[in-house]
C-alpha cells in the first residue's frame, strides 16, 4: 500500500494530482464474456493520454459480481507501472461494496471512490455517518468520499447533509471528496469551505476549475470521460488542467474555448441526466472514446441506447472542437476495435 491509515491523507496530497479518467468494460461480440484485450487496450490508451489514474466503473451495465472483480483485476494488471487505478464502490449492498474493496486491495488497488450502495435508505444523519465509517474501517484503501448518488434531500436541501462532512473528513483513510457532476456551484464552494483544508476536494466539471483551481487549490480531478476532449497526440484537457495549476489562466482559457463545442454537445445530449438519475450514459462516453482512439464495444443491458442522431452530434462536435473522429465502419464500434481488426464482423440474418 505504501502508507498506513494515519499517513493516508499525506500520501494523497503528494500523489493525487492531475486528471483521472473513467474506464468502462469491453465485451466479446456475443456479449457473453469480458474482452480482456479490449480492456487492456483502453488502459494503455488512458495512460498514453497523460491521465494520472483510471477509475474502473463496473456498475454501469449488467455484470455478475465475479465479472466486475475480473474487470478490475485486468485493469490493475495492465496499469502497473503506467497509471494509478481506482474503483467505484456504488454497488448493490454495503456487504458487496466491502467485499469488492477487499478483493481490489488484494489485486493491488490503492484508492477507492466510495459512495453508497442501492440497498440503503438512511433515516438520519447519524446513520449515514455510522455506515460510512463502518465501510472505511473495513479497508486500508485511501477513500475518495463521493456523496453524489445518495440524494438525501429530505435531510438537506443541497442533496447531502453538510453538517456531517467534517466528521467524515476526520475518518483517517478518507483522503478526498469528489463532487458529483451536476452539483451546484454553491455546493462546491461549501465543500471547499468545510473540509478543503483536510481533504482533496475536487469538482470534475472543467468550467468550474477556473474558480476551484486558482481560488480553492484543487490539485486533481476525479474521473470523467475526459478522453472525449483529447487524444494522446494532443492531450489538451490534461494541459489545460496543468496550466490552471501553474496559474496560466489565459492560456488555459484558450484551450477551454477550443473544446467548448464538445462540452456543449455532451452536456446537452444525454437523454438521461446522470445527476438526476444516477445512470451513467456509458454508451455515449464509449462512443466518444472510440471516435478518439478507444476500443469501443457495446455494453450489456440495461444501459441507455445510443442513436444515430447522438452519434452524428458527437462527430459534429468533435469536428467543431478541432478533432478528427475515427473514420471506420460503425460496425467497429459495436464489436470493439481489436475484435474488428481480427476480422470479427456483426452477424447477418
Amino acid at each position, binding site marked *: 500500500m505504501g502508507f498506513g491509515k494515519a499517513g493516508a491523507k499525506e500520501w494523497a496530497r503528494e500523489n493525487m494530482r492531475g486528471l483521472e479518467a473513467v474506464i468502462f468494460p469491453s465485451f466479446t461480440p*456475443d456479449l457473453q464474456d469480458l474482452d480482456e484485450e479490449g480492456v487492456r487496450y483502453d488502459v494503455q490508451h488512458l495512460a498514453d493520454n497523460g491521465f494520472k489514474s483510471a477509475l474502473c466503473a463496473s456498475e454501469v451495465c449488467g455484470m455478475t459480481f465475479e465479472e466486475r472483480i475480473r474487470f478490475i483485476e485486468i485493469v490493475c494488471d495492465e496499469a502497473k507501472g503506467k497509471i494509478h487505478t481506482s474503483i467505484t464502490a*456504488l454497488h448493490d449492498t454495503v456487504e458487496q461494496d466491502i467485499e469488492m474493496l477487499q478483493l481490489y486491495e488484494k489485486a493491488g488497488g490503492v484508492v477507492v471512490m466510495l459512495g453508497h450502495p442501492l440497498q440503503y435508505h438512511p433515516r438520519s444523519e447519524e446513520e449515514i455517518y455510522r*455506515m460510512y465509517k463502518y465501510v472505511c474501517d473495513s479497508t486500508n484503501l485511501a477513500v475518495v468520499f463521493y456523496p453524489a448518488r445518495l*440524494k438525501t*434531500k429530505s435531510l438537506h436541501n443541497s442533496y447531502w447533509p453538510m453538517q456531517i462532512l467534517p466528521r467524515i473528513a476526520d475518518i483517517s483513510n478518507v483522503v478526498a471528496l469528489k463532487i458529483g457532476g451536476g452539483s451546484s456551484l454553491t455546493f462546491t464552494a461549501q465543500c471547499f469551505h468545510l473540509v478543503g483544508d483536510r481533504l482533496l476536494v475536487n469538482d470534475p466539471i472543467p468550467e468550474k476549475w477556473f474558480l476551484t483551481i486558482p481560488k480553492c487549490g484543487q490539485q486533481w480531478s476525479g474521473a470523467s470521460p475526459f478522453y472525449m476532449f483529447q487524444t494522446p497526440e494532443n492531450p489538451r484537457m490534461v494541459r489545460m488542467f496543468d496550466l490552471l495549476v501553474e496559474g496560466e489562466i489565459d492560456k488555459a482559457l484558450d484551450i477551454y474555448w477550443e473544446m467548448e463545442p464538445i462540452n456543449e454537445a455532451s452536456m446537452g445530449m444525454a437523454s438521461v441526466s446522470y445527476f438526476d438519475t444516477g445512470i451513467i450514459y456509458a454508451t455515449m462516453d464509449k462512443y466518444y472514446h472510440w471516435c478518439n482512439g478507444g476500443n469501443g464495444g457495446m455494453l450489456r443491458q440495461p444501459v441507455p441506447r445510443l442513436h444515430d442522431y447522438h452519434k452524428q452530434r458527437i462527430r459534429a462536435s468533435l469536428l467543431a472542437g478541432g478533432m478528427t473522429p475515427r473514420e471506420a465502419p460503425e460496425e467497429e464500434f459495436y464489436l470493439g476495435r481489436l475484435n474488428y481488426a481480427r476480422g470479427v464482423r456483426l452477424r447477418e440474418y
Partner: protein
Amino acid sequence: MEFTKSEAKQWAKEHYKGLDGVVSPSFMPDLEQLDEEGIRHDVRLNISRGMFSVLCQTEVCAMTFEERKRFLEIACDEAKRKILISMFTGIDTIEKDIELLKHFEKVGGTHTLLGWPGMFYAKSEEDIYHATKKICDATNVCIDLWPKPKFDFGRFHPSLFNPELVERITDIPNVVSIKAYISDGLGKWADIQHRVGDKILLQSAEIEEWPITVAKYKQQWAGPADYVIFDQTSDNPRIVRMFNLFLEGEFLKAMDLYWELAPITMKARSAMFECGMLGVKYMQWLTGGNGGMYRQPTGVLFQRQKDVMRAGLKAAGVTPREPEEEFYVGRLNYARGSRLKEY
C-alpha cells in the same frame, strides 16, 4: 400453444381484450437471489386488478441469463390458466433473445413485446426485416411489434421507423399486434393505422391517447404498462372500467373517470418516469405491489419525485403505502420481519 402460426392473428383478436400489465423482477433484501414470493405477489396483483395479461420486464436490471429464465418460469407458473403472459424481447443479442423466447414458450409464455437487442446494428431495412423474421420464425408465441424510436432505425426513415417496413413485418404470420403511440409522431401513427389498422391489433398503451385510439378507433387492448397503479384495491378497478367505457361508446362516462385519474396519469406518472423503471417499481409498491430494490445499474429515487408520486395518488383517491423501508426490502420480506441493516 393452443393455436398454430397461421391462426395467431385470429387467436389474438379473440384473446387480447383489455389491459396488459407489467411485472418486474423482485430480489431478496441482499439482492443476491430472486424473490420468488415477491414476483408471484406482483403477478397476482395484476390478476386481481383485472389485467388480461402481464408482461415480464426481462431487461430492467442486471440479471444473469439463468436468472432471467427463472424469473419467467415463476411468473408463468403463477399466471397459468388465469391470464396470458408476455415478455420483453430485445436484450443483448439476437441469439440470446431467441434462446430466452424458446424457454419462455416452453414454460407457458403466450406472447412477446418485440424490440431489438443492443448488439444489433442494422445496415439496411432489409437487415431489420431479416432479423425480425428470424426471431418470429424461431418461436410460436404471438409477436407484439414495438416500432419504437429508441431502437435507432431513424437513419432509414424520418419517422424513425418506416411504416412501410412495419407493414411488411406484419405479413409474418405470428405478428399479431403493434404497440404504437400517437406521441411518437401523429404522422407515423396515422400511416401505420392506414396501412395495417385492419390487419393486426394496433394499440396505444398511453392512457392519454385512449379518448382517440380506443373511443374512435376501437382499440381492443392496451399495454403493457403499469396499470395497477391506478387503483388501491381490486374491487374498484377504475382503469379497466374506463377502458371498457371508451370501447363501449360511453365517452362522457369514460371521461369522468379519465379526469378522476388525471392526477396520476399526468403528474405522478411523469415523476415516476423521471426515476426510470425503478420509479415504476416504487409506484407499484405504493399501490399494492411488492416493491424491492433493483440491482445496479438503475436509477435513483429522489425524495421530491417520491413526494409528487404520493401527492398524485392522494389527489386521485388512492392512499399511498407506508413505511418507506418496506419498499427497499420488498413487501413480503418486510412482512416476514426483514428490515434494512443498521450500521
